[in-house]
Every structure is written in C-alpha cells, then in structure tokens.
C-alpha cells in the first residue's frame, strides 16, 4: 500500500508544517516520492493532491515568494482541516443514525451519511432499526453547490426560465416534494424563490462572504394564491365539511373565520394571484365556494359560464 503510506504522510507533513512546503521539499519529506524520476513524481504528487481534496482534505496552494523565482507551496490549515467537536451526547448521535437510516437523500452518488457519522464518533450502540427507509428525498443536480453557497455566503448566478439570475442564497427548502432556493434576487432587488428542478445548467458561485444574511429568512410561498407582489386582497372561501379537514391538512395554518354547525368552515386567504386563487377554488369542485370579494366571485362565475356554454356551441 505505497499509496496509502504516501497519502497519510503527505497529510501529516502538510498539517505539521508552519510554512508552506514546495513540491521539492515534500519530495524529500514523504517516503515514496524520492525513489521515482522527476516526471513520475510530478504526476504522482498531482494525483495525490487531487485524491486528498476529493476526500475533503483542504490542501491549500500558496505562492512562496522568499525563494527566487517564487514557487507554489502547499499547506493544510488545521482550522480548515479539523472537525470542531459538536459535543453530541450518545443518544443524540444515535438519533442522527436513526435519521440517516430512515430518510435517504437520493442522487448524490456514493457519498454516504455513513462517513459523516463515523467522523462524528461512529455508532455508540449497535441497534436494529428494522423496516425500510421511511422517506426518500431527491437531490437535484444544483443542490450540493447551492448548499455550499448558502453556508459560505457566495452569490450564485444561474439560468432559470430563460433568463440569467444573480441571487444571494439564503435557504434551501424541501416542501411538497420539491426543493426550492429562497434568496435575494440582486437584479430584481427582491426576495424570490426558485425550484431547483427548473434550473438550466449548473449554478456558478462567487467569492465566499460576499453578502450579509438577513436575520429572519422568509420562507418559500407555496400556496398558489400567494405568488406575486403587491398588496394582498382578502378572499373568503367556504369549505364543505367533507373536505374542510383535508384542505386544512394540505395547507396548515389557514385562517378560519367561521365554523358552521354542519362542519363547514370559512377560511380567509391573502390573495396576490387571482389565477392562483381560481385554481385553488376550482380544485374544490362543488364542495367549496368563493364567497368574497364580489369582484373575484363574479370573475369566477364568468369563467365557469364560458366553460358551461361550450357544451351547446
């Protein structure tokens, strides 16, 4: 295992050094580098650096300018390398294990949660979890890069719906089976949400630390009648008893303004999108009714009249 030997000793040497080491210095210090020709050493060294970086070892390249001519030097900053101790109690670590076995993030390749758990201290007690995964969450292509950008406060640029967007990423949110990015759209000077499966191509990240995160990040608006800007209009919708519970389950937190004795309820919606409201109310079929405001109710009746009239046409 000459390679394992090299990678371990290379990592140790780069962690221990106080000044960046040049390739030539590393060739002297790491066994396995000094018994091959110069060209072979270069190739091996490059590959080893790539392998280490792939594992997440932060091998840094800096310019060493106290030699003439200046050369590339290498180091690993301990603060970048070391996992800070999260202080997990045994039961907390076990809870994370259970979570990792019951919820799978699909489509990120072979990089497992296992390795993360080992770094955090492994599995304190072997436990039989039993049963299958409880849920699967898809990982669309831009997810990992956007997560990194959100944590490191890097501005991202990407193509979306035929236009290029520049966004300060605040939060990634999985709701209703889809991933959303919520952030500040720099060109539109407003908070916007983007569905990750509608990205065209990969996002490009800028420099870290390039914006301030707001203290209270707004959540993605997922109710169809809430999309859009401008001041909201209140709309009251009657839900019959058979569907009131189902609709309120699907949209937790709906404001109920009236509970009728037959089990029907009236909910008040803050509407920014009239087509969104129409889609919601039509989804109720004849088990619900848009009560107010009168203008929106008249619009809806007009829409239904046009549909009903087509039969005779």
């Amino acid at each position, binding site marked *: *295992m000459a*390679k*394992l030997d090299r*990678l*371990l000793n290379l990592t*140790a040497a780069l962690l*221990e050094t106080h000044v960046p080491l040049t390739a030539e210095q590393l060739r002297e*210090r790491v066994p396995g580098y000094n018994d091959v020709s110069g060209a072979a050493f270069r190739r091996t060294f490059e590959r080893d650096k790539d392998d280490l970086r792939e*594992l997440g*070892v932060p091998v840094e390249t800096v310019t060493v300018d106290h030699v003439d001519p200046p050369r590339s030097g290498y180091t690993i900053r301990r603060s*970048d390398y*070391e*996992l*800070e101790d999260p*202080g997990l*109690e045994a039961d*907390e670590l076990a*809870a*994370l294990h259970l*979570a990792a076995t*019951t*919820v799978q*993030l699909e489509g990120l390749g072979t990089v497992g949660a296992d390795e*993360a*758990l*080992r*770094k955090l201290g492994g599995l*304190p007690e072997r436990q039989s979890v039993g049963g*299958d995964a*409880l849920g*699967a*969450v898809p*990982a669309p292509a831009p997810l*990992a890069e956007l*997560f*990194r950008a*959100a*944590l490191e406060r890097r501005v991202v640029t990407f193509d979306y719906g035929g236009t290029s967007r520049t966004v300060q990423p605040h*939060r990634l*949110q*999985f*709701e209703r*089976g889809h991933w959303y990015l919520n952030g500040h759209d720099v060109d539109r000077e407003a908070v916007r949400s983007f569905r990750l499966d509608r990205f065209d191509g990969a996002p490009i990240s800028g420099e870290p630390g390039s914006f301030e995160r707001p203290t209270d*990040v707004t959540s993605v608006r997922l109710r169809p009648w809430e999309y859009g800007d401008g001041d909201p209009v209140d709309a009251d919708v009657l839900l019959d008893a*058979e*569907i009131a*519970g*189902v609709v309120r*389950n*699907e*949209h937790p937190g709906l404001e109920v303004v009236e509970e009728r004795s037959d089990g029907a309820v009236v909910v008040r919606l803050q509407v920014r999108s009239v087509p969104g409201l129409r*889609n919601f109310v*039509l989804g109720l*079929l*004849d088990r619900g009714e848009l009560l107010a405001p009168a203008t929106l109710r008249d619009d809806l*009746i007009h829409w*239904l009249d046009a*549909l009903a009239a*087509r*039969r005779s046409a």
Partner: protein
Amino acid sequence: MSRATATERLQRILVILPYVVQHPGVTLDELSRRFDIEHDELVADLDFVLVYVGLHPFTPDMLTEVVVEDGCVTVHVGDYFRRPLRLTHTEGLRLLTAGRALAARPGTDPGGTLDRAVAKLAAVVGDPEADALQVRLGAADPEVLAVVADAVRDSERLELDYYSYGRDTPSTRVVEPLRVVARDGSWYLLAHCHRADGQRLFRVDRINEVRSTGERFEPAAAPGEGRVDLDGVARSVEILAPAGVRWLIDTYVTDEVTELDDGRLRVVLPVTATAWLERLMLRLGPEAHARDVSTGDVLDAVASDAATRVLARYRPG
C-alpha cells in the same frame, strides 16, 4: 484480506486515530463495532500506521506509536490527526437533510433529542443559526399520523374516513396498515383495504378520521410496493391547452409535451379518475380541449358538465 481502496483505508484511519487519541485504552472490540470495521482490517490498519506513518526524518521518535495491549489501543502521535477531518458539504447536506426531515415530522417533540442533535450538527456544518436548510416530507395531522404509525407497529386494523381526491368521494374503509412512507411531498399509508380487496396507498392528509378497532391481523411477510392508489388504472388523455400555461407541465406528471406552432401546448398525461380531469379542465378554461388517446373520444363535455355543476352552487335555484 482487505479489499478496501487506498482512499477508503485513508478515510478509515483518519477517523480511528483521532478517536483513539481522545479515548486512550479503547478496546479493539469497541472500535470494530463503533466504526463497523472487521477486526482483522482494524488490526491491519493500526499495524500499518505503526510501521509507516510519521514525520521526516522518520527516526523512531518521529514515528506514530500504536500500542495494542490486552485488546486495548493507545496511540502516541505528534500533534497531527488529533481531530477527525471536518465534514464535506455533501456529507453535511446528507445528514442534515435526514435529521431535519425526521425532526420536522408532524408530531415530533420539538426540543427533543433529535432536535438538539440537528442543532449541534448544523453548527459544525457551518449553519450556526440553523435555518439554511428546511425539509418537510409532507403535511399531515400529527394525531392521525401517530395513530396509523402505531397501527403498523401493532398490526392493528383501523377504520378510516377517507376522501379520495381523484374521485372526489368520501368513503369509510377498514384497512390493515402495512407501512407508512413519505414520498413526493406527502405521507402515505400502505394498507390492505378490505373494500378494494388489495393493497392501496392512502394519503395521510386525506384521512378525515381514523378509529381503532382493537382487532389484530397477521401482517404479510413482504408488503408490496403499493404503487396502485385508490383510483385504479390510468388512461392516456391528450390535452390541447392555450399558450401560457406552463404550470400545467410543472405541476402534473406528463407523458408527452409538444409545443405547437401557434404556441399552444399538446400534452399527454395519465388520468385515473374523472374528478381529477374535471379539476384540470376547469382550471385550463374554455380554450382547452381533451381527448381519450386510445378511444379517440372527445372529452370536452367533462369540463362543461363540471362547470354547470359548480355554477349551481353560485346560482342556487
């Protein structure tokens, strides 16, 4: 012996060494169990480190010293490898997603063990406010979810008042709960349904009421995939939709999408139940047309009939 690649062994050694440094005298048995490594692989890794790993000029005082005595391991190292390597973004993302998803399950105790664990994990991943990632597997009434999950565990028959969205019909059914799963943004109960005489998927948020029966059943050895929902088999329907209804493609599962020269969309999608198609056609408006792909039947009356029915609510009498 070991078939692990050099980088796999490297990863392993980079977590075991720091653990031993921080827990001197830990047993081989515990290391083997904790990190899920075969005993002989573990011993081989430790031997390897003893023989090969150190710092220039690799004189005895510069080599890592691993001592295994009576099955207990102690490592004397220099300053390196005293902490594990930090999590990569992908590792952090994967574990945090799982933790957040489970912690946000309806009915989970806020501030409980998992919540605390997730907050600590978020801090070392680089999300100290713990709000850069939110995962909700689905909305559901926590009490209903708890009752159906308990019934799966205890193999207890349940009676459900269920609203079939696709058919727009409420019904009461006796079911044998087999599994609770989250999929595509909703919680589902896979159960054997007496009325349908087969396994069906029930969306937990469409269970209006659930009642315990106190009766036990023999669970099937291997529950099926349960891909069939209550609405049964789908037929293919072709929709001609006016321009500008991108939401149609984004919201529904489609088999075919073609943009016509005049900007209209031709979409073929699976339809299992009439009420489902009614909603779609009502939303698309009077410009849209529907046709059954296999029979060629024009289905436009679906929309006009439904519109007439809904209008009766708005203009009673």
